[in-house]
């Protein structure tokens, strides 16, 4: 593979892959928060 094809592929897949993965992670984190909300006792303890 020539350098430009390599560079463009890495840039497109790299930036896209990083954004996609972190977006999925942010969704999973939001789901975790909803599935395990802070209880009243824990809230008071904080």
């Amino acid at each position, binding site marked *: *593979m020539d*350098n*430009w094809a*390599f*560079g*463009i*592929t*890495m*840039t497109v*897949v*790299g*930036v896209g*892959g*990083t*954004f996609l*993965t*972190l*977006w*999925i*992670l*942010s*969704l*999973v*984190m*939001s789901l*975790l*928060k909803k*599935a*395990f*909300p*802070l*209880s009243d006792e*824990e*809230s008071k303890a*904080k």
Partner: protein
Amino acid sequence: MLESVLGGLSGLGSGAAQLFSLQGLPNLVMLAIAAALLYLGVRKQVEPLLLVPIGFGCLLVNVPLGDLMEAGGLLRILYDMGIANELFPLLIFIGIGAMIDFGVLLENPKILLFGAAGQIGIFLTLLLALALGFTQLEAVSIAIIGAMDGPTAIYVTSQFAPHLLGPVSVAAYSYMALVPIIQPPIMRALTTQKERVVRMGTLKKSVSPTTRLLFPIVVTLVTGLIAPKGLPLMGTIMLGNFMRECGVVARLTKASENEIANVVTLFLGLAIGGTMEGKAFLTPQTLLIFGLGFIAICLDTAAGVLFGKLVCWASGGKVNPLVGAAGISAYPMAARVVQAQGQRYDKRNYLLMHAAGANTGGQIGSVMAAAVMLSVLTGMGLI
């Protein structure tokens, strides 16, 4: 007898004789560079935990005939023990995971996307490195300086371009320390007065201990399944964080963030210094690597701030674009820079918690960017 005494005596000054010959000139220059690194570390407090051992390792390897980097030499043993097999950066990651509180990120998960925007400079620098004639794997190793994450840079470079380990590591750690100087002019140039004074309010504490405990496990599984080649990096950070959050292995957590991290940092620094032998280090490539590293960090910052402007516009002006500059991995320096810049234009603007969220996102983002790169390289059949 006299002949043997004279022969023995001639061995005593052989190091000096070689150093002050034409052949020893590169070593002499590197001794000056070692002195500069030690000066920066000791007097200017620029990343002293790394620059002091790196500077001293550089000094040791450039004393002629010491053979510390030859087979059986101290620096070679350290190098083979933990850099050639990528063990040291991973051990440091356990300590980093144990030190980082991802709570602020969990309060506002969407801010994690700033951590992705802050990595764009890596990929743009990759294109520049290729244009300058570096090989594909060298370009990947140089671009990773833009991750602003020393252990990640060392991990990737030691695999793909071990001959560039010295300049890449020194550039990564030096520029990390220069974040408070490099970032502010770019942040000011890309934002308007109106954008800089946007207030983001306070974050309410809404994350349960269960969520905090499950977070490292979920991140490990999700990122590991998407980009398996990055699992050693993300897995070790999350191991450290899991130990911190579970609260039942306080001794291990403490050891990871103190004793283990300290010992490994010393060994890592010395071994990196050992790669800075004059003839190998003093090349035009080294200057190019330092230049490209600087560009990578500028591009990361610019991309983060521009992404912040986009989010500011999309949210109807509820997000301060300066926070985007914290989407890099230099933790917690980048968050502090955002706070300082925000308060420069509005003394009562408190951006620190939001910036800390973006900054921890940058920590995950930088590792993820490296993981994606490794997995793409595997997919292309290049590694």
